[in-house]
């Protein structure tokens, strides 16, 4: 019994031990069998050497500067870069002056108009001797317009050979040191910083103005296809990427499933446009996509993107590797709405700013070269890559973005809290004493400038005002009103006519509104344009209507940058037009601002609405019996020069918050605005 019990306990102990042994051993064996998990610190990273402190530097202190004694290198033969092959000394003084070789023999209409557009630009000069850039137009070979070696060739130094269409001219001469501006040059032949990459323009590209972008709304429409693909015959086909993972794979094309719609379209309607890098017409497709607001997805393009020197294409297009199609597709599907939104808008901005017309392409080319010459005073990247674009933000005005009316938000700055009043005194030449008093009464007024522009002698005595008053003796020209006087020291200008009449609180309120919209014109009196079916042209009227598209510059706030733009970027012909038909000056100024902002102006309430509804045309003789009839065609002439109608209509007026509300007058800040 006892032994049985002993034996039992022994057996128990034994089996327990065995159990433990098996368990433990098994566990250990299991651990061995499983692959060791990587331990965080002990991965095979770069070792921490014991003697790392003793290692020598790659270059001994003091050794570095010593290596210098060696003659400067001569530029490599054959190849050119900007420093070696362009002589900027000729561009000193006036900046970029361009001479265009006249065409030999009969020329095509396109050629003639390109010539005209350069001749009308601020870069043009007649004399090849004064020019710092000599432009050789090398147009379509099919029409036999290949140039022969020009006279002042000088081994191509300071020459730009402009080829809008890549139909190659037979090389009749060596390019030498000439720069080449060419449509979609191949990456291998392109010399960055020296050549200029142009867009591949279709034959029928408009010369001026050009079709606006197709984008009608900021975000993609719901249900619109994610991807559009090129078709063989120049159309686009949308692909439903949900079902097929290989939309651009040849095999899939043979099997047009229900998800694929076969449709011929001239412009794609999709969020992304896939453009293969190989096909020669890819560059053409690229431009179509831009216009359509379809984000181009370029698969390993072999050509240089247009104006890549200045345009940041990562903001408007996606350049992906053609060898990873699935990854690209996945990336497109997963792209955040914020990025899609930004890319879409950028395509439209770039199209409108640089590509929509031949004229813009040529001016952009010249601007790129001017930026190289300017060096430090070139456009900062921000000016090239955000609206309104470098053609409309002149670097001669300033290179600091915060000086322009467009970039306050990006710069995190605000417009100044003061303005300068610029009062134009045309005939009959009465000093506008009442007006000066009203304007000087504004707490925001920094200075008053009187532009004396009539035959009468300057009055010797002026009012005593709280703000400095300067009198400028003008040249009796209407366009003088928009000259960028160096005496104007504030961002905001209140442009006035001596016969305008404003109250201090009107001025105060309008200025506060301008501070919220510094890029627009804020005015009191308005007029609107309309399409005149009867005459087949544009017309405009100052009659009271429910909408308006222009504000009269006889009483308006705007940024002083528009003076620079008016004087330095408009074609001379337009300014002459304004001088000859003074009523045109309002239209012209409104055109410029609308072309830049792509927005309508802003109207604020004006107490004397009734009496002065008619345009305050300067230059009218005597105390107006009747406002002179507006020169009938000035709006059409200006529209023709712009190439399109930039004016936009607005249906609103900005009033003080409590304007004419049924509350106590004591609560209201701008009481006097409500007086009849």
């Amino acid at each position, binding site marked *: 019994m006892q032994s049985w019990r002993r034996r039992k306990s022994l057996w128990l102990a*034994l089996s327990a031990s065995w159990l433990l*042994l098996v*368990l*433990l*051993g098994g566990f*250990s064996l299991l651990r061995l069998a499983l692959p060791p998990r990587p331990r965080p610190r*002990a991965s095979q990273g*770069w070792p*921490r*050497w*014991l*003697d*790392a402190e003793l290692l*020598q*530097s*790659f270059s001994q*202190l*003091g050794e*570095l*500067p010593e*290596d*210098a004694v060696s003659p400067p290198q001569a*530029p490599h033969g054959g190849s050119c*870069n900007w*420093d070696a092959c362009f002589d900027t000394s000729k561009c000193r003084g006036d900046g970029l002056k361009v001479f265009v070789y006249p065409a030999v023999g009969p020329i095509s209409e396109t050629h003639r108009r390109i010539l005209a557009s350069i001749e009308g630009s601020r870069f043009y000069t007649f004399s090849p001797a004064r020019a710092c850039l000599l432009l050789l137009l090398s147009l379509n070979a099919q029409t036999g317009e290949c140039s022969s070696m020009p006279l002042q060739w000088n081994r191509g130094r300071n020459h730009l050979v402009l080829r809008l269409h890549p139909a190659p001219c037979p090389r009749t001469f060596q390019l030498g040191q000439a720069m080449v501006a060419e449509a979609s040059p191949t990456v291998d032949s392109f010399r960055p910083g020296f050549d200029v990459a142009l867009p591949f323009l279709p034959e029928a590209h408009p010369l001026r103005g050009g079709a606006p972008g197709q984008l009608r709304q*900021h975000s993609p429409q719901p249900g619109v296809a994610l991807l559009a693909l090129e078709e063989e015959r120049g159309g686009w086909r949308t692909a439903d990427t949900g079902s097929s993972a290989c939309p651009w794979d040849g095999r899939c094309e043979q099997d047009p499933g229900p998800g694929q719609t076969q449709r011929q379209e001239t412009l794609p309607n999709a969020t992304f446009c896939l453009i293969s890098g190989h096909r020669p017409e890819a560059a053409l497709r690229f431009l179509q996509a831009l216009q359509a607001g379809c984000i181009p997805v370029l698969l390993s393009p072999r050509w240089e993107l247009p104006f890549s020197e200045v345009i940041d294409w*990562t903001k408007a297009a996606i350049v*992906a*590797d053609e060898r990873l199609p*699935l990854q*690209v597709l996945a990336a497109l599907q997963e792209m955040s*709405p914020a990025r899609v939104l930004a890319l879409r*808008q950028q395509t439209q901005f770039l199209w409108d700013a640089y590509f929509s017309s031949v004229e813009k392409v040529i001016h952009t080319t010249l601007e790129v070269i001017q930026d190289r010459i300017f*060096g*430090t005073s*070139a456009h*900062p990247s921000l000016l090239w890559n955000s609206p309104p674009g470098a053609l409309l933000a002149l670097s001669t005005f300033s*290179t*600091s973005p915060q000086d322009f009316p467009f970039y306050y*938000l*990006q710069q*995190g700055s605000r417009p100044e809290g003061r303005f300068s009043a610029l009062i134009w005194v045309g005939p009959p030449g009465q000093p506008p004493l009442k007006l000066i008093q009203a304007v000087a009464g504004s707490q925001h007024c920094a200075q008053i400038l009187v532009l004396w522009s009539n035959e009468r002698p300057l009055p010797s005595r002026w009012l005593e005002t709280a703000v400095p008053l300067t009198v400028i003796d003008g040249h009796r020209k209407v366009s003088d009103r928009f000259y960028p006087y160096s005496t104007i020291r504030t961002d905001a200008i209140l442009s006035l006519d001596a016969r305008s009449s404003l109250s201090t609180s009107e001025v105060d309120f309008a200025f*506060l*509104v301008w501070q919220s919209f510094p890029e627009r014109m804020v005015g009191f009196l308005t007029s609107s344009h309309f399409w005149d079916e009867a005459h087949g042209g544009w017309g405009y009227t100052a009659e*009271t209507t429910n*909408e308006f598209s222009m504000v009269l510059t006889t009483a308006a706030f705007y940024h002083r940058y528009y003076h620079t733009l008016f004087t330095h970027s408009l074609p001379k012909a337009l300014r002459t037009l304004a001088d000859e038909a003074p009523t045109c000056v309002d239209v012209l100024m409104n055109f410029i601002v609308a072309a830049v902002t*792509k*927005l309508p102006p802003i109207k604020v309430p004006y107490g004397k609405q009734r009496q002065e509804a008619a345009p305050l045309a300067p230059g009218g003789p005597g105390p107006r019996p009747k406002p002179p009839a507006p020169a009938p065609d000035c709006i059409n002439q200006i529209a023709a020069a712009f190439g399109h109608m930039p004016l*936009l209509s*607005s*249906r*609103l*007026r900005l009033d*003080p*918050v409590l*304007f*004419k509300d049924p*509350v106590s007058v004591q609560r209201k*800040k*701008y009481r006097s605005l409500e007086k009849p």
Partner: protein
Amino acid sequence: MSCASGSGGGLRHPLRCQKPWDEECEEEAVCVIMCASVKYNIRGPALIPRMKTKHRIYYITLFSIVLLGLIATGMFQFWPHSIESSNDWNVEKRSIRDVPVVRLPADSPIPERGDLSCRMHTCFDVYRCGFNPKNKIKVYIYALKKYVDDFGVSVSNTISREYNELLMAISDSDYYTDDINRACLFVPSIDVLNQNTLRIKETAQALAQLSRWDRGTNHLLFNMLPGGPPDYNTALDVPRDRALLAGGGFSTWTYRQGYDVSIPVFSPLSAEVDLPEKGPGPRQYFLLSSQVGLHPEYREDLEALQVKHGESVLVLDKCTNLSEGVLSVRKRCHKHQVFDYPQVLQEATFCVVLRGARLGQAVLSDVLQAGCVPVVIADSYILPFSEVLDWKRASVVVPEEKMSDVYSILQSIPQRQIEEMQRQARWFWEAYFQSIKAIALATLQIINDRIYPYAAISYEEWNDPPAVKWGSVSNPLFLPLIPPQSQGFTAIVLTYDRVESLFRVITEVSKVPSLSKLLVVWNNQNKNPPEDSLWPKIRVPLKVVRTAENKLSNRFFPYDEIETEAVLAIDDDIIMLTSDELQFGYEVWREFPDRLVGYPGRLHLWDHEMNKWKYESEWTNEVSMVLTGAAFYHKYFNYLYTYKMPGDIKNWVDAHMNCEDIAMNFLVANVTGKAVIKVTPRKKFKCPECTAIDGLSLDQTHMVERSECINKFASVFGTMPLKVVEHRADPVLYKDDFPEKLKSFPNIGSL
């Protein structure tokens, strides 16, 4: 097995079981068994003699086997740890002198010379980078070896301090992988930073025998000092076939755009000298040249400048008569005056960086560190990281032949731009020049951006200093665009159970010409919406969305049903707005599609007594918010509200059942930097049969709560984004002396 049962037995061996209670279970258990067996052994003699010998032998054998097994198991448990830790010890404390030696036979293969036509799509094997959801390349570093030729003479210095740091930086970064099969980029540990310290042919042979060399595909070499006497090539002379080169001192002729990476020449002084940031502004010298060993021709030019412009130009040179023990690299002299280097750089506005025999100069780094604007005079030099950095913002590049004009060129730069450049120069140094690590990571980021372009870092992220990034606003709807009127808007009515009032709102809103769809968000989970037949018959599609939870944020959810860009959020009790007013509101939104355009306006004020923000709904001359009880906005803001609202604001709003409109006002103002637009005159938002916004707002606790919201949101946003304006939008002819019937929107402001 549990520790408690083992320890509860009280059989702990006095010697081996001294571990504290919280030791590992396994060890405890082992200890228990061992103690137990020992105990039985001691008792053994009393027990065993009574058994038969056969049994005895059997038991003894059995016990010994068990014992042995246990000991072995125990050993097994503890051994592996010590083996591993001794391994660790080996890794951490290895010496560079002990790295394996590789003998390179004289006839081992040499790679082709660098291929100048290489581009990412021709020479780079992108398949290796495969699909990576994080859009991050993986970099493998070869183990360090020492290469010797047939005679045992070493090929180069094993590794320099900088290259060791560089590899360490890569190894510590997210790019690193130790799995050679998953790597997309390979970095040899063969140090080619300085071409002067290596033997070209043998180094090339060493590269060629790397295990994944494959003509250098996807291999990245770092070189800062290329070329050697007498002709000083501008790229590393070591034949490297298709390998990418991160080189300091490329010229336009050797740099393969979009393939190579131009990097700075690291200045070891940066690590030694701490130059605190000096604010921008005018400094003692306008132009300074601190380089020694300049070409005599250049020195003459510079000295001519000094003669011409006097005090404002300073040309320094090596010191000739320094006393013993003074580091000559840390001193510069002009005649007999001695200056500390690099401190003297902080005294100058512009500093000359002239090419030497090499284009890349380490002095560039010193100059940037000092916040001095570099004047780079080195024709055809590819500036460091020029693929992503905008050097126009931080430097002046002057052609060599224009050296005599340098002074006038610099003088034409406006003071404000100079200060901007000074700030930018210092920022470039801090971000990309400061350390070897910064250089290595920027290089990898550039390559990463090429491979995953859709996830690339933007120009602003590379170039804008932190202060600018913080202050600037990039409006998500930046394109000036007036959407066509034909698009119309979608009205979204959030409702709980006020069916009657809801139906009135639906009927009123459906009269607005530009309405294109009506969406009712049914926020009541306990009650079904009325049957289809009971809803008002309207001319546009009406959709009812049922929500899963009664949350205020349901109002701002980006429903798929919203097809128009314009959204009108309207409460189910706002029946006092006329069709003219709503239509006009939509027209105003079209002119300001990036803003909130709403009817009742509100204001935030700073309460000086309480030192916090206060909510104001009185009749004031200013507006900073509009209530979303009736407001138009772009549907993108629904997406932002739902997915990108900072902090815990969204949950906070849902928990408090209040302030979703204030949150929306904050969000839109913060992201666009613009003020709201209040439309049409003030109305009493009161209706006889319902509690309207104003009725509610008058409640004192309500006001307190709303003020709290503003303070809470301002602290989450870290700023007060709301903008105060003094205007509202009215129709052009509002209250003008003009026949009412000719006005577009006559029915405005009437109750």
